[in-house]
């Protein structure tokens, strides 16, 4: 089976690991070989959290620079930082809701302008899908559902070998009961946003 390499980048606390879990569970439901690698450690201390998810026949669970087929960024600055994982054929999906790091907050290095940031990514990769995932998550009444919004957008692109049904099933399995409905709603919103926001 063809190998597909997905990178998810986020800021600690944005639910990257939960999104990866859902994807892994959906792959298990679909009988698709999957391997994932995450860096935990300082995740809760506001640092960057990166997950690598490899579908298909490849054995390796990590993804070298320039070798990601898809990059999903939960935060625009982190998406920009992950450009080193992309090549000219990579599809990039990003939220446009910034979480300013302390280095930008205190003014030592400014946060890049969002328009310019998108132009750079668009120029260097095959396709950029960008929208404010935090605003969509807020619409579901669950501001923490940014991860599910972006998961919806990812599935809409058809770039990873998972069906909508299996991902939804996985969301129901993995989510805490109280959040299952809002997570599914967030997934739908993200799916729709990706359809309309290229």
């Amino acid at each position, binding site marked *: 089976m063809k190998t597909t390499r997905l990178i998810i980048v986020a*800021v*600690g606390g944005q639910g990257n690991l939960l999104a*990866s*879990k859902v994807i*892994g*569970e959906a792959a*298990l439901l679909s009988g698709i*070989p*999957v*391997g*994932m*690698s*995450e*860096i*935990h*450690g*300082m995740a*809760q*201390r*506001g*640092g*960057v959290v990166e997950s690598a998810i490899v579908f298909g*026949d*490849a*054995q*390796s*669970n*990590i*993804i*070298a*620079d*320039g*070798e990601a087929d898809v990059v999903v960024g939960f935060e625009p*600055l*982190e998406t*920009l*930082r992950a*450009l*080193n994982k*992309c*090549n*000219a054929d990579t599809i990039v999906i990003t939220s446009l809701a910034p979480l*300013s*790091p*302390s*280095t*930008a*907050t*205190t*003014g*030592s*290095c*400014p*946060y*890049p302008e969002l328009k*310019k940031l998108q132009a*750079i990514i668009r120029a*260097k*990769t095959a396709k950029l899908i960008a929208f404010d995932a935090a605003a969509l998550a807020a619409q579901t009444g669950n*501001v923490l559902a940014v991860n599910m919004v972006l998961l919806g957008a990812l599935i809409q692109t058809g770039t990873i070998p998972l069906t909508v049904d299996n991902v939804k099933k996985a969301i129901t399995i993995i989510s805490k009961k109280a959040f299952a409905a809002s997570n599914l709603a967030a997934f739908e919103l993200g799916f729709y946003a990706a359809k309309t926001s290229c």
Partner: protein
Amino acid sequence: MHRLLKARPGQKMLLLGNEAIARGAIEAGVAVATTYPGTPSSEISMNFFQISLETDLYFEYSTNEKVALEVAAATANCGVRSICVMKHVGLNVAADALLTLAYVGVKGGLVIVTADDPFMFSSQNEQDNRYYAKLAGLPLLEPSSAQEAKDMVAYAFDLSEKLQEPVIFRTTTRINHSTETVITGEIQAPQPLGNYTKDPFNHVPIPAVARKLHARLLNRLKEAEEISETSAYNISAGNGRWGIVCNSVSYKYVLDAVTDLNMGGKTKLLRIGFSHPLPKALLKDFLKGCEKVLVVEEGEPYMEEALKAFAQEEGLTLPIKGKSEELFSRLYEFNPAIVRQCLATYFDVAYTAPAVLDLSDLPEIPQRPPTLCAGCSHRATFYVVKKAAEDMETICPTDIGCYTLGFLPPLSMGDFLICMGSSVGTSCGFSKVTNKKVIAFIGDSTFFHSGIPALINAVFNNHNFTLVILDNGTTAMTGHQPNPGVDMKALNLEGYGHVSIEAIVRAAGVSQVAAIRPYRVKKSIATAKEALNYKGVSVIISQEPCTLYAKSLKKLRGKPFFVSEKCKNHKDCINALACPAFFIQNKRVKIDPTLCGGCTVCAQICPENAILPLKQET
């Protein structure tokens, strides 16, 4: 029921490498598990802890890795299957126990898990613990995947019992923190009750006994080598003349590279999973069939050096390479591209690396360093002590925990660190040969781990410094494990004692002991000043729960604050504290109410008293 217990034999489930190791131990009927937490090993113990609440498994968070190993050494010598889990540097702490335990041996299986951390994702060094197996003369196993990690634990227990020696089980971060599909096996019922047979002439290594035991260890090592020769964990594949020897996670990168470079017909692969003692005869045979050999191993040239020695014994002159300028580095971790490139270079296979993007025109991207959380009590303590010491020239040895991050500006409280507990020991040295005020910082768990002997040293040898013990009531950095200072009853956990840090400090002979609540800024500064001015050893115990932990226990009482119109943009709050709850909008300081935990420290230091509780606004 815990998900690792619930899984039926033959069930396919997605497991983190660390979960797979825990399940493997449960399948092997482990009855005792001990640990000191440390990334990337922590989830193994976390699972044991949870499982112990609903089974007969005895689990403990020991005060340090040496104690953890001693506990497990005893239980294993009573015939009870035991596992001892730690991160790689933990084995340094346990090394004293380890090297003589190898002489004394075990009766029941003892597996020592060491989680190495190439690239130092969350560690202070990237030492290669395979050398501990060589140093101690103990068998060493290294899995390449989560499935193998699970299966290998049971093998490790059997091996340990066969050889009557502990077995070292070495992982790396990419094994611990990879998630893969694992097929579960049968769970063996644990035998938690042991029996100790007195045998002092084998168990008390006075010189005469130890001389005998060392000879016995070498014999056991020989037996281990014979087992390694035929172990199913040393996997060979291919009939080519290009030899590739690899271990651990590198195996996967090699498999992918051989496929990608389409060189399968020419290669002969040997994956070593039983890596001490190395299967000498197997490796010599392997070398004889090869034109040239590449050794693919992260870290040190452990197998490479051995292979070169074996070749010398056989009078073989074929090229054997691994670590070199143009091939693999001893630094950091590998990835599929590095391994692909090195295979292509060494075996001279046509290969053009995929084009990478030109990123030279990217604007400067602000870094996102990990920081102390919004409202972290450590930030308050650092601010208080820094304020109290503002007229002094200081040296601030720090220690291992979240608070190490206090070394970053603007707090800049952390000058020197080598290992767990070193803040206290190094303070003795710094204060002896400089005229500067020495202020050491250590967390509660680290103090219990290895700060206490150095504090006693300081009192006995009459040193002169202030030790600040940051007591946030948990081992926060590794995921909120308990320590002896934690009131376990408050967590509804029965059967634990409780050790007072203050009582220990006083019992060590420190007479100048002060407690502060760092969120009370003014009062704390006054108390800290007094302690800093004391000549001799003084201790400040700064008590405030970890805000992240308090939040997760739903015990956080503070309400968010906001910056009112009174703000004149001095930005003292940002410049002195740099709490991540602050952000700048239209050149004005704002507070993110979803992050602010209401610690009130910024409100107390604002010269305009402009930071107010949010409810006053509405």
